[in-house]
């Protein structure tokens, strides 16, 4: 049987379009500087909700990227996805080297084109005839199909929809597709955008912080929503080296599991979160001692942050206080279907830059979160391995093992 263990899966292309940066250089600068992208949201009316902030992509003019005709056909999520995917593919140069049937797209999706579709519903309920084009992106698989068409990626198209772990799983699965030899290269990642559905939904559950989210801090009240897209190109290391590709990092393995506990709450012991982290390490054949730091799911909700801290202790034991657990959601917001990819990107870039990023918006030490969260600022690090956790509604958990290139 072929296994991810048998091949080193290299990351040869990176692309991102987010509130914290509209390309990799800009995102890297924000990551290094610790500049939060969370601010007022004006994509729709947020006045009725306790929180009116989020990490919205600002000053976005689709016509700077697309023809008027194309822009009209593409949802905001499709547009983000195409832009980020394009950057990753150009960075890797992979499409010049392989047959289109040897390259695929594996992506994680979330609310997708809901921002447009909810306008159609609103108009329909008001007795007006909404434009059918508003409905084009309502299904979460639309973006993968659109990207496959645009870039002639003909080997595979698939979308994972496990809420907040979608795009982390899509990266693991993309690496699998290369490891099996099924494909030479896979574009993996996710795209998602703010929508009234998710904004009102999380507010109705009272899990949105009225101030910018402050993961692992005392007095944190929940998430700040975000939007964006991030993609990576995965290839077999040998193939990548043969064609002279630059290697940004590696995915050594991943864990994927179901907590089977509760639809919206994590197993409070941290045991289930720890299980998927251990599984990822086992799949990567890496001892826990080799891990330099962990990019947390770190949403900023009181329970999730406490549970993830418990999981760290179960995985790393006495060494847990020495393994920084950082959340980049204070920078990017919680990008839902794209969160796992955005955070994997932050992890790869941080390893490459030799830093551990800062967990932003510190409000004070919480006795229930008693590990090292890098609250005081980014720090330099010679770590070569990091984990990236993604824990979702429904108990869908994914953990990626990423190595410096």
């Amino acid at each position: 049987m072929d296994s991810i263990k048998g091949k080193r899966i290299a990351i040869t292309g990176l692309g991102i379009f987010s509130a914290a940066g509209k390309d990799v250089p800009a995102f890297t600068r924000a990551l290094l500087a610790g500049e939060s992208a969370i601010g007022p949201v004006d994509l729709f009316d947020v006045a009725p909700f306790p929180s009116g902030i989020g990490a919205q992509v600002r000053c976005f003019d689709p016509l700077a990227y697309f023809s008027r005709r194309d822009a009209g056909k593409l949802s905001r999520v499709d547009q983000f996805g195409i832009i980020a995917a394009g950057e990753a593919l150009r960075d890797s140069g992979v499409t010049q080297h392989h047959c289109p049937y040897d390259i695929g797209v594996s992506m994680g999706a979330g609310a997708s084109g809901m921002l447009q579709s909810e306008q159609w519903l609103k108009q329909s309920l008001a007795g007006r005839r909404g434009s059918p084009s508003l409905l084009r992106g309502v299904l979460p698989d639309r973006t993968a199909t659109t990207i496959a068409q645009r870039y002639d990626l003909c080997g595979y198209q698939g979308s994972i929809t496990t809420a907040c772990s979608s795009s982390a799983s899509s990266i693991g699965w993309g690496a699998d597709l290369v490891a099996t030899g099924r494909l030479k290269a896979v574009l993996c990642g996710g795209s998602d955008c703010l929508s009234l559905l998710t904004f009102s939904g999380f507010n109705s559950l009272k899990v949105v912080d009225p101030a910018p989210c402050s993961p692992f801090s005392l007095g944190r009240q929940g998430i700040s929503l975000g939007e964006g897209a991030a993609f990576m190109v995965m290839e077999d290391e040998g193939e990548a080296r043969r064609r002279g590709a630059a290697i940004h990092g590696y995915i050594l393995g991943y864990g994927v599991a179901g907590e089977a506990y509760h639809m919206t709450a994590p197993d409070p012991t941290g045991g289930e979160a720890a299980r998927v982290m251990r599984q990822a390490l086992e799949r990567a054949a890496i001892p826990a001692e080799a891990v330099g730091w962990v990019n947390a799911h770190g949403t900023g909700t009181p329970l999730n942050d406490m549970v993830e801290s418990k999981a760290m202790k179960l995985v790393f034991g006495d060494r847990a206080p020495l393994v920084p657990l950082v959340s980049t959601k204070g920078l990017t917001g919680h990008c839902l279907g794209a969160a796992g990819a955005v955070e994997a990107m932050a992890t790869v870039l941080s390893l490459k830059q030799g830093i551990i990023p800062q967990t932003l918006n510190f409000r004070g030490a919480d006795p229930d979160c008693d590990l090292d969260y890098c609250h005081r600022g980014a720090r330099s690090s010679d770590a070569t391995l990091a984990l990236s956790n993604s824990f979702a509604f429904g108990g869908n958990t994914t953990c990626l093992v990423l190595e410096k290139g």
Partner: protein
Amino acid sequence: MTPARNDIVITGLAAISAAGVGTASLHDAIKRAESLLQPIPEDILGESGHFWGKAAAFRAADFMPPLKARKFDRCSLFAVVAAGMALKDAAIAPGSLDAARIGIVLGCGLGGLANAEEFLRGYFTAGSEGLVPMLFPNIVPNASASNASIEHGLKGPNVTVIQRFCSAESAFLMAKRFLEEDRADVILTGGVDEVFPAMLKSFKAMGQLRSFGSGFGEGAGLLVLEKRGHALHRNARILARVGGVRTIGRFFHEAYQAGVDRLLPEPFSAELVSLSGTAALDHSLLDRLPATSRLDSGRILGRSLAMGGLAMASLVLMLKPAETGLHLASSPEGPYYAIDLYGGDPVQS
């Protein structure tokens, strides 16, 4: 080819569809080959002449207390009930196997959208006072698989997949891979979907009711995939063996034939082919299977994004021991799947 211990086999099935609840009603419907689609009530679309395959015989109250059923959306109800039926069919009793070694990888196309529409309708008609928080957790497409995992204690890999009309097949590929990688011993896979009025209205608005949006069905078709060695060890009945799973994302216009070759390499033969999604319209693929008996469950039960689960279950039910079957699925913009299944288990039988 002699089956090996690390082959992947199918040891259980479950079906909920317009044909009824259970695999016996599905088997009968496929053998009769008569359409079970019913007229969509005129008040839903404001016009007649459209058909759907509602799982009208399915009553959640037959399987769980009404209060419990209320917390699930319809797709989750299908998934929870079908997962229980599939495990029972595979003779996997609750708690008999390590929970972490049983996973669920499910295709789900339209799950969550009915709840999303109801949630937003509350907001658009009554403002923030109209929001019903209880609806929100089940707006996510993974609600079906996750609710099934919670109800049946499945702690192995848990993934929900969607890709056009090939959502169940996409899940099948992933489930098989997870077993081959030893991430689990048993994985429930297949598809679940529902049809609901707002979806049909959106199809109408997009002008799709007379093309790819016509004749939609709903239900669940689940297959229990298992490592053959594991199945033999527990003396499980083996319904079919899984062969190759081939896929392409889309056809490349400059190399169309190469795409056909990847899906159906020549010489290709199968005794029975099941068609799902828009495969019945893909003559370039069907031309490679001129003498093969065809089974079009979508015409009988209705199509949907993840109804390939029911089509694959139908194929397994119809295959005789050692007979070679092919499941062929496609979508107008891709992807395409070709899955080889072999009836029974020649060594075991």
